């Protein structure tokens, strides 16, 4: 069952239109919310006059931030500083040269100042969504427009507009990891030094389901309920409870089907808090559904990281030391520092770099807050080192594959501890690269380049190796119940946003308990029965959840053996278990798992007669490291007359560990790859540098990948087993995206080498490419 590419069990409801997303739900007595959003990137709020809106037809209430504070609540603590990648008892960032690590509580509606275009200012609640929306236009706001800064490097400059009193120079923190002095000393003596700046463009999450939320309040019990799609209900519950100053037991979060996650939906949004608060205020359930235009202005965004890289090389192309400057654009609120912690930890990727140092600045700007977006720092880190290797190869006259071979971590060095402290226990780095080159017919490329040239096209090929650092929330929980009627109930803390847990979790249990997959049901996403768990991000669900599934299944088998032993009147060690049946070889007696559950329901467990459920639970709260790795090759053609880039072939060799369901894993690679191609070639959130106005606010002007985005694909899964978890899971969710911009930009640079070697802007749209080619003309 494990390893089989079976179609997903959850699909039937989705293909028949029976999925249940938040906006599909209707709660008795619900009313509707709409938000007035800021047209300015930075402005003081002199006054907000809601009197006309309050009188508008159908309007029940108009609320502003001061109302929220007057009710005695506090802003959301997003806990932006993540848990350390290695030691789960510590934070990722411990010190800052600015003093403390800034963390501004996020009041759902701002009190005195707006800090990005689209920030919600006031909330209208009305009988219908249309009435609520119409009334937002009757709110009079007196703005004192302030200077805005949207670029992180600009925001650090002396005299830049400042967002928060608590963040001098707009810095949330600034910290040094690794020995910069020593790195600089080595680089100063290095025979060849390369410096280059990389801008990882800002992308919009664009999950297909617009965010939605329904808030409810029960006045009798004082309990809040939020129904809202997300990447993890438990975190949302804890954040809400803290903001509303109630014990977590007073908050229930229900997460129905969720239409895509990709990172940003791990965090709570102000609208989710606002609807539960408003429900309490007005005594009725309050529903809000974002439209796509709002999503472009208010969904947490991805990337927007600048890396100034300095590498010292030996003459034969070995990296001697790295000294990077990493500047992360946090946006207007302190939501997450994850991209910086992930990106800097994995900075040396699969290469045996003796010394690496990075100086990190987390910077606030007048933009939508950023959050982890698929890969979250690893694609950026991979892009930097892979581009630097290509540039060095060109300067040193080395083959691009050869310079990598010289730097790759040798398999015999495993377990290998990177300069950033990550320990890789497995990974055939050289073999993966060799296989990718072979599949991509790297050696025959020059003939294809010549053929393209004969047709007036510029052909390029690029290569990138990658490794990931699956981290994320360390705490996870599985509860497993075998029911006498022939069903198995799994409650998992983590939940799917499209990854197919109902199938893969069932595959693991079907294998370990020898029961039909159809007998297994997975329940997730409701804190009424989910107590602990972290949600889907950082390749964590099967890595942690799978380990706990195996653990609980083993416990069930142990319990079952005790029951069977009692029934067979033998010692438990004489009972064996296979294919869902307990048996005693000596007496040839057998009993099925579900019959055992029936016995337990009737008579209880041996020695524990009060326990009448065949049940097991397991929890983890520590780091379970595993490092997905692989190599990718991209071949493309550029039309010099139009600047259009056409990918012609893409190869990816991915070690995701043991694939539980290869069909699903390959789907993850496809999806990640499409997002990577999108970032490389078409997607970016264009924000005007002077005014902070968003210029790409819809699918009409945001370069969303369409059908055909992925070219002919050579995809191969491989495995060098990890010993870090019993299912040998490494993770597949980020394998497609991690090397994508690196391979594409290496291929582009290869195609365009005769026109210069400076860095193309990301995304490399036809305009960017055309201007690169024609800039001297």
């Amino acid at each position: 069952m494990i390893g089989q590419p079976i179609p997903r069990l959850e699909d039937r409801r989705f293909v028949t239109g029976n999925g249940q997303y938040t906006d599909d739900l209707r709660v008795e007595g619900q009313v509707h919310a709409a938000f007035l959003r800021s047209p300015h990137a930075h402005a003081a709020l002199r006054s907000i006059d809601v009197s006309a809106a309050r009188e508008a037809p159908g309007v029940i209430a108009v609320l502003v931030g001061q109302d929220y504070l007057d009710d005695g609540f506090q802003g959301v603590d997003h806990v932006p500083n993540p848990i350390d990648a290695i030691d789960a008892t510590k934070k990722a960032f411990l010190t800052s040269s600015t003093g403390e690590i800034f963390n501004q509580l996020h009041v759902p509606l701002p009190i005195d100042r707006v800090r990005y275009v689209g920030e919600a200012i006031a909330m209208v609640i009305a009988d219908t969504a249309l009435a609520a929306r119409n009334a937002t236009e009757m709110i009079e706001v007196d703005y004192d427009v302030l200077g805005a800064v949207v670029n992180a490097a600009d925001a650090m400059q002396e005299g830049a507009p400042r967002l928060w009193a608590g963040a001098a120079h707009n810095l949330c923190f600034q910290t040094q990891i690794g020995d910069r002095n020593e790195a600089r000393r080595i680089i100063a003596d290095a025979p060849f030094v390369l410096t280059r700046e990389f801008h990882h463009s800002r992308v919009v999450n664009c999950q297909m389901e617009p965010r939605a939320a329904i808030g409810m309040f029960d006045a009798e019990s004082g309990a809040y309920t939020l129904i809202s799609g997300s990447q993890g209900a438990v975190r949302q519950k804890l954040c809400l409870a803290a903001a509303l100053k109630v014990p977590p037991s007073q908050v229930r979060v229900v997460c129905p089907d969720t239409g895509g996650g990709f990172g940003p939906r791990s965090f709570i949004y102000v609208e989710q808090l606002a609807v539960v608060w408003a429900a309490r205020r007005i005594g009725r359930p309050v529903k809000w559904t974002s439209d796509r235009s709002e999503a472009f202005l208010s969904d947490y965004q991805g990337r927007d990281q600048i890396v100034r890289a300095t590498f010292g090389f030996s003459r034969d192309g070995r990296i001697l030391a790295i000294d990077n400057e990493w500047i992360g654009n946090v946006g207007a609120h302190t939501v997450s520092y994850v991209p910086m912690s992930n990106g800097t930890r994995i900075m040396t990727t699969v290469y045996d770099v003796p010394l690496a140092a990075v100086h990190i600045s987390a910077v606030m700007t007048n933009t939508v807050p950023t959050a982890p977006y698929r890969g979250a720092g690893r694609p950026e880190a991979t892009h930097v080192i892979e581009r630097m290797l290509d540039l060095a190869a060109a300067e040193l006259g080395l083959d691009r594959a050869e310079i990598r071979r010289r730097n790759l971590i040798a398999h015999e060095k495993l377990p290998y501890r990177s300069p950033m402290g990550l320990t890789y226990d497995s990974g055939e780095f050289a073999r993966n690269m060799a296989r990718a080159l072979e599949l991509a017919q790297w050696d025959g490329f020059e003939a294809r380049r010549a053929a393209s040239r004969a047709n007036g096209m510029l052909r390029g090929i690029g290569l990138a190796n990658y490794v990931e650092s699956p981290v994320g929330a360390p705490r996870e929980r599985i509860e497993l119940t075998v029911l006498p009627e022939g069903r198995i109930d799994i409650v998992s803390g983590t939940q799917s946003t499209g990854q197919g847990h109902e199938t893969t979790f069932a595959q693991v249990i079907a294998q370990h308990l020898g029961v039909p997959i159809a007998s297994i049901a997975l329940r997730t996403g409701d804190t009424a029965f989910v107590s602990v768990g972290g949600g889907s991000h950082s390749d964590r669900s099967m890595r942690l959840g799978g380990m706990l599934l195996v653990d609980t299944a083993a416990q069930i088998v142990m319990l079952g053996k005790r029951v069977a032993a009692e029934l067979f009147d033998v010692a438990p060690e004489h009972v064996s278990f296979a294919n869902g049946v307990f048996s005693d070889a000596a007496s040839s007696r057998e009993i099925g798992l579900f019959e055992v559950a029936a016995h337990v329901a009737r008579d209880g467990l041996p020695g524990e007669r009060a326990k009448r459920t065949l049940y097991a639970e397991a929890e983890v709260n520590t780091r379970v490291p595993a490092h997905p790795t692989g190599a990718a090759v991209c071949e493309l053609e550029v039309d010099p007359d139009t600047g259009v880039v056409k990918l012609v072939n893409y190869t990816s060799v991915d070690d995701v560990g043991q694939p539980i369901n290869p069909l699903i894993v390959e789907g993850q690679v496809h999806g990640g790859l499409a997002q990577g191609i999108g970032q490389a070639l078409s997607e970016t959130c264009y924000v005007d540098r002077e005014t902070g106005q968003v210029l790409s606010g819809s699918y009409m002007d945001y370069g969303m990948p369409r059908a055909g985005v992925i070219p002919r694909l050579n995809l191969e899964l491989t495995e060098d087993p990890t010993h870090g978890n019993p299912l040998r899971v490494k993770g597949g969710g980020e394998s497609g995206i991690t090397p994508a911009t690196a391979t594409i930009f290496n291929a582009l640079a290869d195609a365009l080498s005769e026109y210069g070697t400076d860095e193309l802007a990301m995304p490399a749209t036809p305009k960017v490419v055309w201007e690169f080619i024609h800039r001297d003309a």
Partner: protein
Amino acid sequence: MAEIQLRVNGEDVTREVPDETLLVEFLRETLRLTGTHVGCDTSQCGACTVHLDGVSVKSCTVLAAQASGGAVTTVAGLRKDENAPLHPVQDAFVQCHGLQCGFCTPGMIMSSSFYLRQEPSLDEESICHALEGNICRCTGYVNIIEAVRHAAHAMYPSLGDATTEDATR
């Protein structure tokens, strides 16, 4: 207010709704056919695609009043009833893992089934052209394109064995 008479998934319905009601709102809010989704507000994403008088339309671009008198099929009406087997396109999306989060899926299925109303071209370019108006964030479209081919072979035996097409991937 406008009186809307429609045949929706084989059933006649008559409702009075505000003039400005979009067909997608009529389906979702008035009839509670929530399988048809709203993924954007600029008619780009195609999550709301349905068939109106046998033609694929984005139901966010049609007023309910404009559709009145016509016949609408949504993703929930592709099968005769809930006990009937899946429509070949629905089945192909399952078999080919043509969906992940499932949000764009109803629109993808309606656009695909419209494309497959007659024997189609199965080259990549033709299929991509047919799906140009539908956006997916999860799948990279690879398995959606595969699902269209798979369904075509199930619906048109004259096209031969589906596995020969798969070799191009």
